[in-house]
């Protein structure tokens, strides 16, 4: 058990980070090279100013007509996305690990706060799940992979929550938690979770075409 723990919290962490960073970089670079070859427009019409203008509107809650029209979704999706980035970085338990291995640490949130936020993430995942099942326009687009991805994202939080509360089998769950986190990281470059990496580029490009060429808003 201890060996397994050491393995997943040691080399496997490295592996997952390497896959995440390396994979993302690889995806970005290969896409950039492909675009250079086949989609010159992307380079020719990309505008920093108008790209950022559009991105900014879309990353501000209620910054676009679409966000304003679906307030519940907007609140959930923003909280969810903020939490899944925020919690792993500012969780005290994670920071202790950083400190143990690298001697670095930073500000962290209280365990109670983390607990609440984890519930928020899990609730959001349930919201997304229900949405996928209930809303016809989402259900129509949904394939098994969408559930798998949702599970990949939810897993680290559910297992983390479980472990933290020391529910039965929490030791095993702790290991599963680490693995789940690693799977999620590693999955980003190679699943639709890549949307996290590609968002600035797709939105930025549309924002540039709308803003710089067509003198219109795209939000």
């Amino acid at each position, binding site marked *: 058990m201890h060996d397994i723990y050491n393995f997943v919290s040691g080399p496997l962490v490295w592996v997952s980070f390497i896959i995440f960073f390396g994979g993302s970089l690889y995806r970005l670079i290969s896409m950039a090279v492909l675009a250079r070859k086949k989609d010159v427009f992307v380079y020719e019409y990309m505008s920093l100013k108008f790209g950022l203008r559009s991105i900014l509107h879309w990353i501000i809650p209620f910054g676009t007509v679409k966000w304003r029209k679906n307030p519940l979704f907007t609140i959930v999706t923003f909280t969810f996305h903020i939490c899944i980035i925020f919690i792993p970085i500012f969780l005290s338990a994670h920071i202790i690990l950083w400190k143990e291995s690298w001697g670095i640490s930073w500000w962290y949130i209280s365990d109670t706060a983390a607990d609440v936020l984890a519930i928020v993430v899990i609730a959001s995942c349930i919201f997304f799940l229900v949405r996928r099942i209930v809303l016809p326009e989402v259900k129509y687009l949904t394939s098994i992979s969408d559930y798998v991805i949702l599970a990949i994202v939810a897993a680290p939080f559910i297992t983390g929550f479980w472990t933290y509360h020391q529910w039965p089998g929490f030791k095993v769950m702790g290991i599963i938690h680490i693995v789940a986190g690693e799977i999620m990281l590693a999955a980003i470059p190679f699943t639709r979770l890549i949307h996290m990496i590609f968002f600035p580029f*797709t939105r930025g490009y549309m924002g540039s075409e*709308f803003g710089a060429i067509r003198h219109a808003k795209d939000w």
Partner: protein
Amino acid sequence: MAEPAIKRNDESYKIVDEGIDKGIARLSPEKIEQVINKVLAAETGARLKTYVETCVHCGLCSEACHYYLSHDNDPKFSPAGKVKQTIWEILKRKGKVDPEFIRDASRIASTECNLCRRCAMYCPFGIDIAYLMSVVRRLCHMLGVTQLYIQDTAHSHSATLNQMWVKEDEWIDTLFWQEEEAQDEISSLRIPIEKEGSEIFYSVIAPEPKFRAQLIYQAAVIMNAAGVDFTMPATPGWDNSDQCMFTGDYEMMGRLKKAHFETAMRLKVKRIVMGECGHAFRSVYDVGNRWLAWKMPPIPVTHAVEFYYELLKQGKIKIAKKYDKPVTFQDPCNIIRGKGLHEKARYVVEALCEEFIEMHPNREHNYCCCAGGGVINTGPQYKMKRIKGNRIKAEQLFATKTRGAKVIIAPCHNCHGGIEDILHHHGLDMELHFLGDIIYKVMEKPV
């Protein structure tokens, strides 16, 4: 769990289109696979890939689409739903799809999407569904599957470099005829033909000389009254329209735009001013020119709305008496989402009319008329489909009418076609005009 990708739309199945039927009959699965993979490999790349891989299947784009809204939120008509039924399947099956799949793909891409780009403002990632639907159209073109009417138009473009089979002499003769007619009203009026070195080349779409010659008359009156130094060519290249852009025949699109811009260069004009047409603007401004490697139009193009704005702002046209019926304004996608002319359009409308009532939504968020993107050009068989596909427009217009609007101003030919059918079908008693119609009515005219 997962919905099957293809749900056949029974209603549209009754539509008989020889262009599609014969095209499909000539296909074999092998040919389809070969053509699809060849075209995808040669012509698509990072954009297609990124769009497909980034889409999180969230459905947020759905409510952007008038087809979706008008079909009681039927997901088959949602933007991403159309991509699912076409591009996703094609990629998943690596091009191994059957002829009936192509029939559906053509129906979806060419008659159930106006390429209006409204959904790009509702998808958080800005995924360009219009681009993806254009890719499908391109595939259908390469497979020889296009609706008969629009294909005939594409043929006209190729043979005459205009959309309506207008012969060279008929075009010139129409200009003479309209000049003469207008001289009855303003004796000094002139439509200068081939006047090299003019400030402006006034370009129109072929349906003007063919069916709506009075628009040339009105434009001539406006130009003459405003003292504009303009000319019109006596050669092919006068037509700015482009259905080849919509069928996916990009090689012809390029040829048409080349002829158009080279006509402007030959005439030594400073810019092209074009009539009230949405799709033609798209074609000359940021689609056709790009195929030719002109990053921006080599000779600047000014859409009529912007041109009228200039004339009014500079006082070149004076208003004798404002138009007194309450008006509303249809923001055409291709010049609003396509060029941001909404505020200028409002300036013009307010300068001309006593009372202006906004429809909602408006500006960039206005609903497409459901005629654009070549959809109206697919032929009369598809008329009911357009009308049903845009119930939301009827509701939008009805609400505006309830608030007092009696007249719709739509500075786009396709919008006219689309809205006319909608008004007629729903018995919505509203008048429909171009801006030019109103200017012509209310302006001070020389004698």
